[in-house]
């Protein structure tokens, strides 16, 4: 499972691709002075496909890097107990202080925000970030923005991580990232308003909920549900399918059913009654219910939901990579993985944590015990085979052009 063996096939494909527009640029040799000046403003490409997977990349990056006793961690909201018990424990144990910022709310904006700094080889102010396995993961990876991980510094990961993650399509062998948590995109709803249980994707198209349906503004999340609603499998879809899905989504929008396209803000909208039924991420709803005493339901639709993985990765310009990788490994200690999942209620990448949770439950009484048992047995935290059968993976892209095409198909819906 170690990284050096073979580069990702998509990287190879990327390498053999002609760099877009090069020849066109040469053809324009006789430009006017103005044109030449305009042309001189070209944006440098950062694509160095395959380079980071080179055998010596790991050594090259990690040589001479030492522990600095501090690190800055960029994460999503609702991804840790606000009291941050795990980080306190980490500081006690290692002496490394962690600055934890909930600054990531959607992948697109996050990539756009840090891309200029990374291109300029400047620090982005964070040593560790949690990024989803979508389109932007590929962009981070292919642009050479992610530090290759030194797996000799990740003993707990090797011992405790679920083996299936090493075979992921987006980062085979976990060369650049290790999972923070996986999650399921399904439907959340307020039964007191919908007056009936929600079971399928078609409910998101139900005119009875006109103006009260929330969808995600993240193009992949939105596209996935469009594809699933149209009876297509995202992971195997191509451009013609995307257009069908887009038509389906456009119809939903034109009928006035969609209230808005949300990022992380959908939780707030659900809480305020702005939407009654919405695309949602599994753990968020659970946490909202715990923290605000609400009673929202989360369901994986009959047609299927999607599963994604949020991954810890170290930006190539990180100032404190050793501290960052130490924290990465810390979350693979079974005990820490268990307490984290107990709070956030997302799919835990450490299978052994289930037993630990049950142990925690046994030590408690009453409501606390019930709560911990329910988490340990929740299919949203430790999904079984049957659950996985209902889940789909993200649309996979082979080239940057495909990604752009995908964006072009779905962007006009969100930006209507």
């Amino acid at each position, binding site marked *: 499972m170690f990284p050096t063996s073979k580069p990702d096939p998509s990287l190879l494909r990327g390498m053999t691709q002609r760099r877009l527009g090069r020849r066109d640029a040469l053809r324009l040799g006789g430009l006017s002075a103005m044109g030449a000046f305009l042309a001189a403003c070209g944006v440098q490409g950062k694509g160095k496909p395959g380079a980071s997977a080179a055998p010596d990349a790991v050594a090259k990056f990690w040589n001479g890097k030492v522990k600095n006793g501090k690190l800055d961690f960029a994460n999503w909201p609702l991804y840790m107990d606000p009291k941050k018990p795990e980080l306190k424990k980490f500081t006690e144990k290692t002496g490394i202080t962690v600055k934890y910022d909930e*600054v990531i*709310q959607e992948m697109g904006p996050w990539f756009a*925000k*840090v891309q*200029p700094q990374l291109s300029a080889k400047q620090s*982005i*102010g964070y040593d560790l970030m949690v990024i989803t396995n979508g389109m932007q993961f590929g962009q981070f990876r292919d642009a050479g923005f992610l530090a290759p991980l030194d797996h000799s510094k990740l003993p707990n990961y090797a011992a405790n991580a679920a083996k299936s993650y090493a075979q992921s399509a987006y980062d085979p062998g976990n060369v650049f990232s290790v999972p923070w948590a996986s999650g399921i995109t399904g439907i959340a709803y307020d039964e007191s308003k919908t007056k009936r249980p929600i079971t399928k994707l078609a409910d998101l198209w139900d005119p009875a909920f006109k103006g009260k349906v929330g969808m995600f503004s993240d193009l992949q999340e939105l596209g996935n549900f469009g594809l699933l609603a149209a009876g297509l499998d995202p992971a195997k879809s191509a451009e013609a399918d995307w257009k069908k899905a887009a038509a389906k989504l456009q119809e939903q929008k034109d009928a006035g059913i969609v209230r808005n396209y949300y990022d992380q803000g959908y939780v*707030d909208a659900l809480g305020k009654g702005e939407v009654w039924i919405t695309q949602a991420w599994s753990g968020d709803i659970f946490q909202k219910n715990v*923290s605000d005493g609400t009673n929202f339901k989360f369901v994986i639709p009959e047609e299927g939901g999607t599963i994604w993985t949020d991954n810890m990765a170290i930006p190539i310009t990180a100032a404190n990579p050793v501290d960052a990788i130490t924290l990465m490994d810390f979350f693979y200690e079974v005990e820490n993985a268990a307490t984290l999942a107990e709070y956030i209620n997302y799919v835990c990448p450490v299978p052994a944590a289930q037993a630990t949770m049950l142990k925690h439950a046994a030590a408690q009484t009453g409501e606390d015990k019930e709560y911990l048992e329910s988490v340990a047995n929740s299919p949203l935290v430790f999904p079984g085979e049957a659950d996985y059968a209902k889940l789909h993976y993200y649309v996979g892209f082979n080239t940057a052009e495909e990604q752009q095409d995908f964006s072009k198909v779905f962007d006009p819906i969100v930006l209507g």
Partner: protein
Amino acid sequence: MTQTLTPAPATQATPSRRRFRIGGARMMHIYTWLLIAWLVLPILVMILFGFNDPQGRYNQTWQGFTLKWYGELFALPDLTDALIASLAVAVVSSLISAALGTGIGYALGRYRFRGAGATNLVMFAAISSPELVMGSSLLTLFVSMGVGLGGVTLTIAHVMFSIAFVATVVRARVVTLDRAMEEAAADLGATAWTTWWKVTFPILLPAIFSGIMLAFALSIDDFVITNFTAGNVQTFPLWIWGSTRVGLPPQVNVMGTLIFVVGVLIAVVANLRSRPRKQQD
């Protein structure tokens, strides 16, 4: 057109002012107050919810009175950092833009020179361009040059949009400047430099100061241009923008309230001090 007549002090309520009155005065009075109430309503809501005692993460329904957020004002380190970043950028950018803007304003008000028209034009464009375009075009500049975004690019941007405002304020004062004082100084043998420092600068100081205040206010409130040029630096408005999606903590309301109160106090004091100057308009 008023030049041909003697410039009457407009603020004095001369009897002839009556002639402007077209009836419905009471209606207009009530209407004015209604409009003011409308303007103030969201501010009151902001202040009120700084005293709210919400149970969960979401401060959106009234759940009881508390003063605790004033005590825990700095309990959220990232919010505090954002506020500090905002203040730092505002101080630095208002000072730089004051220095640069004063130069332009003075030159435009005092001299006739080739290029004055072009300078005027650029300033006019800088004031009337949409913020969105200024912010995004700066982003393209930084991206094309391979410059990473952060505190420096942010400050550069803030100086950029403040210069023209400072220059306009200073120029307005320079135009009304009595040249005789400078000439008297020169006649008494002062060098150009001494005249500037000892005579002109002190006269311009109030205008420069209002320029600084204006630049400071523009900077601390700016969202659009900041959003394009800040990279990962969080300023107070950016932090608020990011947090709306996950629930604004009451501390934001408290900070907003405090900024409001301090701003109002400064404005009132500045206004009282500049009272005698009002006649000039």
